[in-house]
């Protein structure tokens, strides 16, 4: 970790406008949940549904499947991609700094953004939807965190590898995880979304079935894959940064 790298990264990642845009996503989630809560207060039947599978459905569909990959993409690629594109990364590279420490620092900053704008809102949404600080809120917060870590590391690596990181990341999140993962059962095994869902499922325990939370992979496999992907992506990104070419005239 390097405090100066962290400060520079944070300041370029969280410009005033960027922060506002980032706030839109969690605000939309919270707004939706608040609306559901209000409707539940008006209609008893709806309240019953909300206490059943609706709360986890909302948290899964909006929190885990949309919010986390998008935030991971914005924070992961945004913490290093623009610097590589613009060439300002040279000010970090022309220093006696360990390349891995640059990557780990940037990943930590990205993760901070993901926690503030993603994990916490998911936790709050869980509380709002269920009306209690309970297992559902906790399970989805931890699940969101595990997804956030893996997405950030993966998309940060992507930003070091290619200038089209955002496009490729979007294609992965939207096409692979949502579309292909929804249609082809095998594809689900290779999906951060499913791995983090396995974490949620485990934390919900026996109520997982009743709440309709089901992952395509087992808990053990999911944890191993989450750790391997996160560590692997971080190490690969660090190695790649050691030999990053800077082309002045491209």
């Amino acid at each position, binding site marked *: 970790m390097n405090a100066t790298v962290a400060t520079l990264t944070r300041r370029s990642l969280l410009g005033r406008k960027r922060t506002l845009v980032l706030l839109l996503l969690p605000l939309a989630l919270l707004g939706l949940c608040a609306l559901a809560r209000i409707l539940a207060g008006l209609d008893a039947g709806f309240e019953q549904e909300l206490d059943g599978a609706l709360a986890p459905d909302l948290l899964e569909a909006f929190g885990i499947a949309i919010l986390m990959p998008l935030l991971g993409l914005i924070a992961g690629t945004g913490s290093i991609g623009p610097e590589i594109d*613009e*060439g300002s990364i040279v*000010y970090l590279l*022309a*220093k*006696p700094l360990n390349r891995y420490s640059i990557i780990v620092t940037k990943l930590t900053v990205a993760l901070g953004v993901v926690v503030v704008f993603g994990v916490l809102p998911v936790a709050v949404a869980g509380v709002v939807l269920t009306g209690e600080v309970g297992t559902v809120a906790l399970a989805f917060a931890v699940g969101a965190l595990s997804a956030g870590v893996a997405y950030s590391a993966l998309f940060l690596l992507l930003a070091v590898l290619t200038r089209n990181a955002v496009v490729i990341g979007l294609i992965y999140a939207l096409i692979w995880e949502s579309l292909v993962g929804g249609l082809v059962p095998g594809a689900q095994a290779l999906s951060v979304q499913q791995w983090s869902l396995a974490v949620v499922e485990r934390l919900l325990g026996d109520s997982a079935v009743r709440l309709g939370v089901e992952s395509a992979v087992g808990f053990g496999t999911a944890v191993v894959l989450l750790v391997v992907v996160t560590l692997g992506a971080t190490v690969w990104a660090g190695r790649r940064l050691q*030999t990053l070419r800077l*082309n002045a005239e491209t």
Partner: protein
Amino acid sequence: MSTLELEQVSRWFGNVVAVNDVTMHLGPGVTGLLGPNGAGKSTLINMMAGFLPPSAGTVTLDGRPLQRDPEIYRDLGLVPEREEMYDAVSGWDFVLANARLHKLPDPKAAARRAIATVEMAPAQERDIRTYSKGMKQRIKMATAIVHDPTVLLLDEPFNGMDPRQRLHLMELLHRLGDQGRTILFSSHILEEVEQVAGRIEVMVAGRHAASGDFREIRRLMTQRPHQYTIRSSDDRALASAIIGEASTSGVELVTDPSGVGTVQVQATDFSAFVHALPQLASRHGLRLLEVRPADESLESVFSYLVAR
């Protein structure tokens, strides 16, 4: 005192050879890297800065290879060509961050010194995005010298500077060079280079075309054959008179597609020819309608050096 050594260095990108078998030894003092755009200057500087491995050959700093060793940046400062920095921070914060990244014992004092050296103290609190090109260039310079490096590489540092800023940077480079630092800066403008650099290395089309002090390079550039295109009242009579002059080596009558005839002259001694031409014309009662040097572009000057 540091020495940068390039031994038979080549760099290619796919089929394109950007740098072709360059051997160069850079010692203390200011060296100018001169060449037209696309000559491979930036590629060469990137290799010297350790950001690009050579495809063949070696680049070393005091015998140490430059690749994959972040420790070399304690001795090396770099002013990149590109303008982008961290726009959302102030000049002071950015130079201070660079001092901290170098893990200097007293980063604030180092940042203050560097900013004073480039005379940016009055504007140091402003965000970098509000700076003019010249101010950005000076802040870049401050980040490169904040750790007091023995080697300083500058890629086109005079780009975008007004004459006063240019003069100031030239003085600064002189001063840093006199302190025994090894300084290399690239430029495509001869006049710029010869005012600062004690030594000039000329690159053309990826090759190391010439090397020496600026007088030598200037002589090479001015004593080359010069081409002139001339229109006159009687081209044929003029051509026959010109070929009688000792300062010329060839004359050709050329008619362009629109039917306008010209005399193309190859002069071996350009100052003698320029003096002789008007006298010769009046002696033969000819009127000169147009006299134009045909190849004064920098590229042709450089390509002459290569073909030499």
